[in-house]
């Protein structure tokens, strides 16, 4: 198994786990014309949910851009994103996982990767940047697991030289986002 030397010294522990309380899941439906990520973040904010694990169950997409990994020519990180691949719809989402939490500046982020199939039957997939996934007729359905007592919150990670979501304990009442 090949390993890579990261730009910063290895941090301990290598595996982080925090316990969140059992939660009532939410099934969320978005409609045509919404952006999948921004729409979900905004809808969940209205429900008071700023921390969650997300499974996108269905989505019909009119227009999409996604990013895949590449070596970082600057050498400042072991990997970065290449240029976006753009797809015109109809694009059918086959599966997507997301993590919702506060970004490094406190704004709520949805870190989401998806696998989709285009109108010609070709598979695609990658990281979805916010604002580049326009929902078409049929909209989207997501199953949302709200996180309380422990959440993902982004902070600078000196090992990888990226801001990354880290498991973070909160007060029993939860934290404000």
């Amino acid at each position: 198994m090949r390993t890579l030397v990261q730009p910063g010294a290895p941090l301990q522990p290598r595996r982080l786990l925090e316990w969140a309380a059992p939660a009532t899941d939410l099934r969320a439906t978005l409609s045509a014309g919404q952006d999948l990520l921004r729409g979900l973040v905004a809808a969940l904010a209205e429900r008071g949910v700023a921390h969650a694990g997300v499974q996108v169950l269905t989505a019909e997409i009119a227009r999409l851009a996604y990013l895949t990994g590449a070596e970082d020519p600057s050498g400042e990180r072991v990997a970065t994103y290449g240029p976006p691949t753009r797809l015109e719809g109809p694009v059918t989402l086959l599966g997507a996982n997301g993590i919702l939490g506060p970004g490094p500046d406190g704004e709520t982020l949805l870190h989401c990767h998806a696998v989709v199939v285009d109108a010609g039957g070709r598979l695609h997939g990658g990281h979805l940047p916010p604002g580049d996934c326009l929902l078409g007729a049929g909209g989207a359905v997501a199953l949302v697991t709200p996180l309380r007592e422990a959440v993902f919150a982004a902070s600078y990670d000196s090992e990888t030289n990226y801001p990354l979501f880290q498991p973070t304990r909160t007060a029993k009442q939860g934290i404000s986002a």
Partner: protein
Amino acid sequence: MSAAAIFEEGRLGRIAVIRLRPNEDLVSAVESACREHGLVHAVVRSAVGSLVDAVLEAGETALEVPGPGIEILTLAGEVRPDDAGGPRADLRGTIADGKARVYGGRFRRGENPICITLELVLQEWLPA
């Protein structure tokens, strides 16, 4: 023709908010994280992350996908106790390489080093 399913009654319990750091093997590290926190029954609820390189099993085939920067697109599966009572993970999913080619299969233990991070939500399964 009849085939009986085997049922196990239970419910979903606590939620584990997990991050794996770079160069940890996906399957082994999920098992280690569970062992360190006394979790032996769990299901994957969400996961976002990347791998240095990937090896996926599909039938008799081992798909070797070189990275770095392989994106984990979807991850599904569960953690169950092995014969000795320790956590054993069965993880399957889809990935994309740097040329945006998509592959799917079962993640082979010991062959899928984390690249930047894995953000993982497991939910405990509590057998009745």
